């Protein structure tokens, strides 16, 4: 079980729907109309996976901070 996750937002994909900021406001906000994580490395939380899996353009990725394994989006 990983102890920390790294959140990435690909701003070239992001279309600013704000679904992530509404789903996980403690982890995402909109800056200049695009999604930005409040912190890049965070403690694991299901709501982050919810946000990543709900993004219509798969702009959000979640990796294990220790071994770089991709955790979300799920296939």
């Amino acid at each position, binding site marked *: 079980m990983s102890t920390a996750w790294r959140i990435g937002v690909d701003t070239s994909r992001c279309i600013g729907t*704000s679904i992530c900021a509404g*789903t996980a406001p403690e982890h995402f906000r909109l800056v200049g109309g695009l999604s930005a994580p409040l912190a890049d490395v965070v403690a694991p939380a299901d709501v982050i996976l919810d946000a990543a*899996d*709900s993004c*219509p353009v798969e702009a959000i990725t979640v990796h294990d901070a220790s071994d770089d394994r991709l955790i979300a989006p799920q296939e």
Partner: protein
Amino acid sequence: MTESAQTTESRSVPPARPYPFSVPDRLVVDPTYGELRENEPMTRVKLPYGEEAWLATRYEDVRTVLGDVRFGRAPAVQRDEPRLTPRQQYSGMLTMDPPDHTRLRRLVAKAFTARRVEALRPRTQEIADGLVDNMVRLGPPADLVEHVATPLPIQVICELLGVPYADRDRFHIWSEAIVSTTSLPMETIQEYLNNLWGYIGALVAERRREPGIDDLLGALVRARDENQDRLSETELVELAGGLLAAGHETTVTQIPNFVYVLLHNPDQLARLRTDPSLVPAAVEELLRYVPLGVGSSFARYAKEDVEVGGVLVRAGEPVLGSLSSANRDGTVFADPDRLDLEREQNPHMGFGHGVHHCVGAQLARMELQVAVATLVTRLPGLRLAVPEAELQWKRGMLVRGLLGMPVAW
């Protein structure tokens, strides 16, 4: 007395205007929106049904109402919510906030990501080509609504969900119940909805008998059966039925709307014909430009006191955000009333904003791109086959669009 209560007492609440401001006229955006953006960006409105509400008309304010977590949809079920329809919706994703909403949304969102939708493009193109071939074979004049705009999105959503296309005549009729305001009597709306839920329920039972079927309906049934907390049986049926109906009434309506607008902008249409690489940008611009809804609905309720557009919205008050008005806000879109297919910055709100941003947006985009590209390249002489005044527009529906569109080419 608290500080917020003082602010509340000092705010001025203007009398409510009847809303929508006028009977929908083709695809014209009522000029009242522009006046309000300028002079009274938060105004009071009274819809045909339900309580009074605030209406936000400026782009930034609409973004706040739809995107800020201090606003939510869940309180609507406890209230007589402002609406265009006699019937109020008490279930479904549009009556939920995170985290309840997330539970349902996440289940379907995966089927509609840009990547999944891209995989459907070749098949969508094949369907579109077949429909245009058929229309060409029949010869002009032909009804674009009947021969292309209606069957294309319906066949795609049927294949994606796993609903037999052969049953389309039945569920096409029932789907109107979802977007009807006054076009159908209340009893008929309920009857059609019951038929739709019953029909989906039978398909769900079929997926349980044959659990290996690999379509969205099968995936939803498996999600329900693997973990009953994720999805109730009613939610499953309403979700699938809702997707089927939404797949019917939106893209079906927008294809003729887009063609109508392009025919009214012949220079832009000519530009699109000579350079089909403009199609994706053109679709975004048409999504911005065409006011699909006859009026704003699905008000968001303030969960605490929130200042929006210089007005203090009190906790518990409903606020509507007008997408059509936001999309014509000149502070965001230069020359907003002009169709410009090459507009570079186009953060339009044609699909809404926030957690309820259209779940089928990527699918609709792809279908609209295929439809527009196919029509403009294969039918270079596309034109109306009747005088404009003879076109029949929908009445008593949540969406604006043509009942029929006789064309020649």
